[in-house]
């Protein structure tokens, strides 16, 4: 470091991030998608549920710049409104996974011993079930109620199944942090377990955990679309990119627009979160300096 002023790891990382182009591209994409999810009417004045069969597969006219789908709905409006559930499911599923992963990782890493052995074996068992296969069984059961639009079921499913990587990462950073001198010093000064955990170890173990959660957010959005595509995700009146893609695959020979646009929005959203996670990880990884 040429600077005379000493900087903490996070301000150092921020300094790096500010000059990273990928970070800015990803952030702009994320902000746009979040805006779209919160206030879709900012992007379109059309109503995505205003569908007229006589406009079936009509080309781009007036406000509908992407044309109309097989039910005569405005593809652009539907795609914009589709962002909301993707983000809602992605964010809440990631929060559930984050809480579970944090608990498992902290407990296993800090207390070690038999607790670590039991928790780690449990994580091994969870890793024995590929995410989508577990999700198929669980989501099918949770969404049995025909009246629900499936948002709750998918969120809980992905949240309950996706926490293993986060827990493993948390565990290893806690183990690395608890052997540091400052933890020993704090312990010698008489700090109790909870003070050690939450004041000293946790703040220093958060970086890679947050990176994993950012990437998980992207994965959850992709998984939601996949489950909706398979017919066990969102349903009913929910507008979802996965459902739109699934519906459009039957008509690709007639109209490609209804397939292409939701696909592009979905891919861009997932890419944005994964790039963001990648960029933040690079900034926090001292080995790359």
């Amino acid at each position: 470091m040429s600077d005379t002023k000493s900087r903490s790891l996070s301000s150092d990382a921020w300094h790096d991030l500010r000059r990273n182009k990928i970070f800015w591209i990803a952030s702009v994409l994320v902000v746009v998608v979040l805006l779209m999810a919160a206030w879709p009417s900012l992007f379109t004045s059309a109503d995505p549920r205003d569908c007229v069969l006589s406009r079936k597969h009509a080309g781009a006219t007036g406000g509908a710049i992407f044309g109309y789908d097989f039910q005569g709905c405005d593809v652009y409006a539907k795609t914009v409104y589709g962002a909301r559930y993707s983000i809602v499911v992605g964010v809440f599923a990631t929060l559930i996974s984050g809480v579970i992963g944090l608990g498992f990782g902290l407990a296993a890493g800090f207390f070690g011993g038999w607790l670590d052995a039991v928790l780690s074996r449990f994580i091994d068992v969870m890793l024995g079930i590929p995410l989508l296969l577990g999700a198929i069984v669980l989501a099918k059961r949770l969404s049995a109620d025909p009246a629900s639009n499936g948002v709750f079921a998918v969120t809980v499913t992905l949240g309950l199944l996706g926490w293993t990587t986060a827990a493993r990462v948390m565990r290893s950073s806690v183990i690395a942090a608890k052997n540091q001198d400052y933890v020993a010093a704090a312990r010698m000064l008489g700090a109790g377990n909870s003070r050690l955990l939450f004041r000293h170890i946790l703040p220093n173990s958060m970086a890679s955990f947050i990176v994993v959660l950012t990437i998980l957010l992207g994965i959850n959005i992709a998984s939601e679309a996949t489950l909706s595509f398979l017919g066990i995700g969102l349903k009913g009146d929910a507008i979802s990119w996965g459902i739109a893609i699934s519906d459009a695959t039957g008509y690709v020979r007639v109209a490609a627009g209804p397939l292409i646009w939701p696909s592009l929005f979905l891919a861009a959203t997932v890419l944005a979160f994964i790039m963001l996670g990648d960029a933040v990880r690079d900034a926090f990884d001292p080995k790359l300096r």
Partner: protein
Amino acid sequence: MFRYIVRRLLQMVLTFFGATFIVYALMFAVQDDPIQALVGERPITASQRAALTERYHLGDNFFAQYWYYMKGLLTGDFGTSMTNRKVADMLADAWPVTLRLSLMAIVIAATIAILAGVVSAIRRGSIFDNATLVVTLIVLAMPIVVIAPLAQLVFGIKLGWFPVTAGKDASLWQLLLPAGVLASLVVATELRVTRASVAENLRADYVRTARAKGLTGARVIGVHVLRNSLIPVITLIGVDLGALMSGAIVTEKVFNIPGVGFNLFRGIRTEDGPLVVGFVSVLVIVFLVVNLIVDLLYAALDPRIRYE
């Protein structure tokens, strides 16, 4: 080595029971009335209900039911689908297609990953290397529900380079596009790992020695470096299998290939609970066994690995 194998096998037994238990518990947990689901909309008499309860052991407690389920799995009886076909028979029909498709996907992915990975490792920082990094990032972020339909649209319908659907008794040529789609799910990670491990090995002492002996570049890379660099790539196969299984469900549906994934998709759509649970259980078992084999292979291939 022997101790490692024994320990790994014991772990496998634990994981096996744990994973099947979780799958079973997930299915069991929020179940409302399986008998009504079985008969559909029709009313059902008390005696029919009693007979069905008896037949499917529904009166027993959770653990007894889990025991019957495990006994079925271990003796090759995976249950009967709602259409009254044995899940084992359906699997036997569907398995060869999926196996061929996924083997093709693995070969395609490995070829691309190793060739491009080695080249980018040798020319680190070159245009090729940077382009590969960007492309792998994009491929990594493309969900299967985006890649499969778009590939079909672009390469099958618009450009007409490949057959649009495959169908039953598909030829290798018909399976090429779906296999490529599946390969895209795993190729990015494989490529990045190959690149990282080749780059690391290029700096190793034994490579300098080999060069000093006057060996040609091709021999140094092809024999000395590659052999040591591919070990971490092999371990990826186990993890990748999970992605391939999930990918196969969507890919086989889009390209109309009557394999395991296609049957599973149809089971989900027709609300065929026993079929879905039977297929998922078998896939989980396959996943566990392949991961066990990969772990053992890893230990056998790399003499530096000694597990104690």
